[in-house]
């Protein structure tokens, strides 16, 4: 008994938990702990009503620790920190225990076992909370500027959006000109607006903004610092190569997609008259009269859909997923062909026509204009071959819509409706530590809760680098990334998690083990021995936008500003961990031979108490 006053809340999650875990028993066990003053169950602990109940309990029972046994901390850690704050309890004197993902969902066949495990985990949470000390959030001032990587339509629009909100922007494009894919397109679905014109409009606006600095022929090669205060290293190639460092508060990645390139022989690719969708669009857009290919008028065009898309999980090439934009794009192209005049037969070989939402209207219009749509089964794909007798192409398909007959179509041109695949961006991934999903696209934290955020704080993703999107969807996500960045940068400061590692200089012997262990380069030698890294690289041009005059951001109360290490009295060399860089991963802690490093929020005492809680024999 430590004299603490703890409250424990065990969640039913509507049944998600209570169907497999006896939550009443978990609460009853918690009540046996002498420090636990209140232990309750709730239908939805996250619901507003229960939150209010917790606030009331904290105030009435003067609780100095809170344990919530419900779901993953990824979901509700911040929810209950806010609850604690509202009740005047330090938010770091709260522990989230995950009895849903780790108990009820993992042990659906073993209610007794799941209940026992939930009890153990809850006791561990109580143990940790028993020794929880109040912590104050770390506050860093943020740069009112952002780096946008990628000069396609999403990146351009995002740059403008940021500038509209009074933020400075560095826009980096790898190629020599801005515009990306859309900059090459003429008419785009659904309205037929010309991609080139849209890009020209955006570029014109960007040129007119002094707040936006554009770098073309430039790649991002490095990044240091942390959210709100990144230093990005840019490499400018071409005639005047240079390395430039920019100070930015946030980074928006909008590097777009690559169009799938079929292998030679894949649906006849490589044969004369077999083209990909982007190639075909170029052909159509460059034609004013009836469509010709290599000087020959085209009478029959066959489209083969889903080339490189929907290849199934773990496919060697192409994308496991639907590329989303190509059905509507191909249908739209066929309408452009029809509009050019001439008698052209168009056959669309598809497995599912995915003209979702209002794009369905294009599909209907294409049928009305004479396009035919034979459907093939997923396991019976069309075959494209050269007809040796005529020299033309023939496409053979088993059409489900004509009772499974084999249909042979002589074709003048075969269009492979190719999808989107991730762009090779290994260098960028390394520079930014960006996570990618199994599909190779950049990965967001949560598609609904945090759709443009990545696990790297302050680094956001938008557009088709995240997954297939059409132009307007890319723009929408670009603007969503703007909103997300601005939500942090407009405040002028960012709050960082104070659960970071700290060195006790009296105990540290500076062996360098922690430095080796740290994946975030957060460990440095204490002042006096400190050598600035930047000086090692002469000739680097540093750009930054200082905080606008008269706009000193007001820091919230009860926050600790990040400070440089205080000069240490000892003349010994000791380690210092930059709290703004430390992610609290704890990798350094077990490496320290003198136990000089402790992780706030997970101190040695707390971890031992958790282990005790897990091992405690309840005599059940």
């Amino acid at each position: 008994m430590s004299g603490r006053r703890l409250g424990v809340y065990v969640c039913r999650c509507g049944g998600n938990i209570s169907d497999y875990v006896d939550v009443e028993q978990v609460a009853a066990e918690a009540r046996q702990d002498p420090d636990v003053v209140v232990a309750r169950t709730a239908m939805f602990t996250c619901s507003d009503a229960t939150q209010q109940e917790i606030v009331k309990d904290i105030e009435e029972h003067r609780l100095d620790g809170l344990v919530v046994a419900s779901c993953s901390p990824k979901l509700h850690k911040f929810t209950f920190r806010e609850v604690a704050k509202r009740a005047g309890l330090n938010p770091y004197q709260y522990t989230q225990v995950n009895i849903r993902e780790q108990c009820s969902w993992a042990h659906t066949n073993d209610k007794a076992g799941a209940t026992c495990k939930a009890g153990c985990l809850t006791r561990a949470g109580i143990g940790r909370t028993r020794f929880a000390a109040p912590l104050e959030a770390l506050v860093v001032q943020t740069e009112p500027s952002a780096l946008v990587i990628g000069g396609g339509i999403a990146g351009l629009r995002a740059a403008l959006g940021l500038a509209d909100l009074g933020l400075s922007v560095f826009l980096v494009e790898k190629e020599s000109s801005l515009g990306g894919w859309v900059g090459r397109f003429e008419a785009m679905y659904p309205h037929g607006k010309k991609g080139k014109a849209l890009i020209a409009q955006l570029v014109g606006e960007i040129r007119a903004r002094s707040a936006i600095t554009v770098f073309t022929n430039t790649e991002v090669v490095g990044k240091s610092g942390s959210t709100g205060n990144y230093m990005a290293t840019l490499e400018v190639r071409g005639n005047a190569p240079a390395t430039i460092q920019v100070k930015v508060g946030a980074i928006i990645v909008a590097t777009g997609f690559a169009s799938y390139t079929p292998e030679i022989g894949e649906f006849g690719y490589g044969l004369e008259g077999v083209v990909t969708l982007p190639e075909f669009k170029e052909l159509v857009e460059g034609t004013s009269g009836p469509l010709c290919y290599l000087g020959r008028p085209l009478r029959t065009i066959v489209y083969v859909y889903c080339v490189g898309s929907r290849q199934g999980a773990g496919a060697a090439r192409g994308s496991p997923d639907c590329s989303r934009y190509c059905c509507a794009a191909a249908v739209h192209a066929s309408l452009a062909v029809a509009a050019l005049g001439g008698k052209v037969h168009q056959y669309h070989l598809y497995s599912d026509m995915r003209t979702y939402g209002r794009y369905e209207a294009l599909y209907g219009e294409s049928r009305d204009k004479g396009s035919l749509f034979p459907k093939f089964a997923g396991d019976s794909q069309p075959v494209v071959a050269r007809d040796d007798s005529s020299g033309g192409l023939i496409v053979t398909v088993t059409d489900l819509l004509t009772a499974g007959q084999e249909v042979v179509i002589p074709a003048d041109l075969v269009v492979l409706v190719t999808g989107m695949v991730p762009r090779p961006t290994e260098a960028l991934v390394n520079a930014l530590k960006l996570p990618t999903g199994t599909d190779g696209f950049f990965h967001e934290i949560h598609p609904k809760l945090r759709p443009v955020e990545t696990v790297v704080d302050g680094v956001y993703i938008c557009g088709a680098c995240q997954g297939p999107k059409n132009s307007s969807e890319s723009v929408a996500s670009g603007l969503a990334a703007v909103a997300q960045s601005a939500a942090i940068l407009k405040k002028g400061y960012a709050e960082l998690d104070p659960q970071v590692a700290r060195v006790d200089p009296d105990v540290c012997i500076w062996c360098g083990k922690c430095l080796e262990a740290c994946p975030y380069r957060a460990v440095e030698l204490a002042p006096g021995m400190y050598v600035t890294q930047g000086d090692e690289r002469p000739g680097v041009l540093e750009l930054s936008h200082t905080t606008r005059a008269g706009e000193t951001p007001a820091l919230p109360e009860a926050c600790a500003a990040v400070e440089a290490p205080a000069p240490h009295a000892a003349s010994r060399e000791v380690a210092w961990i930059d709290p703004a860089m430390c992610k609290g991963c704890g990798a350094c802690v077990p490496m320290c031979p003198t136990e000089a490093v402790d992780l706030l929020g997970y101190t040695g005492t707390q971890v031992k108490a958790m282990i005790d809680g897990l091992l405690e024999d309840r005599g059940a």
Partner: protein
Amino acid sequence: MDYDVLVVGAGIGGMESALKLGDMGYKVLLVEKEASVGGKMILLSKVFPTLDCASCISTPKMGATIHHPNVTVLTYSEVAHIRQGVDGHFQAAIRQKPRYVDEARCTGCRQCEMACTVAVPDQFNADMVSRRAAYIAFPQAVPKKAVIERAGTSPCTFNCPAGIKAHGYVSLVRSGQHEEAFQLILEATPLVGSLGRACYAPCESACTRGSLEGPVAIRRLKRFVADTHYRGHSEPAAAAIRLQDPDVVGAGPADGAKRVAIVGSGPAGLTAAWQLARLGYGVTIFEAAPEPGGMLRLAIPEHRLPNAVVEQDVANVTALGVEIVTNTPVTNLDGLKAQGYDAILVATGTHRAFGLDVPGAGLPGVITALAFLRSVKLGEMVDLHGKRVVVIGGGNVAIDAARSARRLGAAAVHLVSLEARSEMPAHAWEVTEALAEGIVLHNSWGARQFRGDTAVQSLELQRCTAVFDAERKFSPLYDESARLELACDTVILAIGMSADTASFTPTLPTNRNGTLQADPATLQTAVPYIFAAGDVGTGPTMITSAVGQGRRAATAIHGWLQGPAALACGGPSLADSWIVGAAETGATPALPDAAATRLDVRAAHSETTSAGVTPAPPGLPVLPDLVCALPDVMPAVNGADVLARQRCYDTRVSLPVKVLRSAPDDMAEIELPLSEDEAWYSAGRCLDCGVCSECHQCLEVCPADAIDLGMPGREIEAQVGAVILATGFTLFPADLKPQYGYGRYKNVITGMQMDRLLAPTRPYNTVLRPGDGKVPERIAYVMCTGSRDKTVGNPLCSKICCMYSIKQNQLIMGALPLADVTVHYIDMRAVGKGYDEFYEQARDMGANYIKGRVARITEKDDGNLILHYEDIDHGGSVAEAEYDLVVLAVGVQPGLDARQFFPDDNLLLDEYGYVEEADEDLNPGRANIPGVFIAGAISGAKDIPDSILHAGAAVAQAAAYLEKVRVRA
């Protein structure tokens, strides 16, 4: 500027918009029309493609929204209009609907919900189960505050001149709460048993069920309630009556309490006495007759209203300490004042009977109906054995007299009516019953003269050709050539009555018909301390009208004695008593301000005030000095709207009135009571027109005292810098595809209903088919119901249905491992990151996907369903398959018409009814009106991730717009 941004709609798009703007530091006003934020997402089970629990990821957003320091949330509120002001600002008018529950006080304990006696379809559970009229939308509602749904005043209640909560006691009987029903009626009047028998029940005439198979037997339910109570409480006493304030009332009036004298103990006087005694006044009733009850006791015959019942009702009043002094006519009102009464209520009724001005009218044997009935009711010897009786009159009193005469042994009873049968003022059923008892009816005859030597021997009649003139005024015309003579021994005149107020003049001015002049709203006469209620002021009416007058008089007297502020804090019963009879007057009388009325606060206070301080009146609580704010009565619900709420109704036979065929000389009550089963059945036919029945059970149980049925709505004006509309979509009404049988086949449900069946907060705790509760083994999905379908006017794809169906397929296979799931589709549109893998996963789990449309569905006797479909994968043959349960994957449609928000501007919609994005390519989420943005499915079908990104786009542009306006300003 009040707020930087107005966000309309708190679904996922609206919440995301508000949160992001709030994080940026903008002040946001978020308006949601439902009682909770959360939109449609919170209704879902899990969400694709990550299978997150929708509740788990919605609730943090909901909580964060409502607690965000920069976001002000108005739930249960609607935007009336938004107008552009100067400098690109907007002026928004918002109407906050009354919840009838004080949000600040409500703790979300659900006591009101559990006590509520009205059940309506639960929209949270897609109408598969019921919820109460008092409810919290769903377990995770934010804010978790109860709402009482009120569509208006139920027609029965609205049309009761006494303001009795007819719907309320009907719903209480339906719940088996007979005593509570009795208590509810007591709120209005102590005359429960009398009204249950003798009331002419205007409530039943107004009953919406009347347009189906007949009105609910509301009056007989009241009698049932009274009989049940009196059976259980043989000694009517204060203890049997739950009093509003037992400290004050249980002990009778406190020493020094103000005293009120009431002249007359009829329905008006008794009701006023009851109400005043409950307010703590010392009340004395002076009654001229030997028994209290007025017409109830003296005129309505025993076979309709037994004396014993009247006595039980009167005992309710005397149990409160009200003194009834009988055999004491009052002629000197000033004298009463001198005796120390602070106020006087005259409620003497209309006891002066009209005579006939024809020859022989003064002959012995010619008597008035009032005198006749009074003698009978008071038990005086009236022997009509062998006598020939003629009753003159066509009204209910005439019928009462005729039937009484029949019971007293008259050899023959003839009824002579000036009116034709169809014109008779008596209720048709009364006439029918009279005829059945052998009474001979002579219509369209008028008395010409009475003949007889020492007593009447015959009556000569002349033909009446018209009773009314062109203006419907009483002006009879006769054909003197047509004569009829009836031999008779007794003639009873039942041709009308009037107030006998001669003794009150000249103190009180009267009207030409003898009624007292009084303010129609306050019932105050020319003498400030004298009020007049009931028939003495209005002329002859119904019992319930007199009851209503008594209630109002009591309230007015209370207001006059204590100041109008006393009314405002007198509780719902007092408020109700002011608005009684709204249907009759057409509007709630406004209580005039103190200066404009002689119901004068200052006058009342001047007697008790010293040094400018109003001391607490003795025996009454201290009344805060409030401005009187009695609520308006809610308008009556339109019966047609009530019937339109539901697509079809079971016909439930209405129970006919059962009448005891008594022997001619038996005075016993003839109408049989409802049995308990019949009462329950009758009450069960109620359609709950107003939704809330005003049964007041919530008021009884609410521990926080948070219920306020008089809560007014609030009109809010706000100046905002920009607007984001996020009002979402509606689901396709599946019954518009009749070939799929939704609404007719119980086991055909919608995708939303399946989502509810699968949700953690599901109604049945498992997947059951609604028809018979069987666990389904074969489940079919019909995709594109209402989408990609020109026949229903929606050629578009709805985007979400393929994916939500795939999600449900997986959840069903998890919940019911033995179930077969088959999906009939056109194209599976798994369009999005990870979506195709999700589709493949469902296939791998065993879901069966068949390409081809479903032509129609037929139902078997056992509730199973036959799908007639095209099987494209197998040569396009037409096939049939039998399923236990069919899920229609309904698509989306535009939600409300957002143009209504902008009466001065032309908000552009696209050809399908969604709000048009002015520049979708570069500025998605921007509408055509500068400063107006749209987020989510208001611009077209979107799934949750797309809606959230779209909201982000709207937010970035709204913020940019604000910055631009700020710079310009």
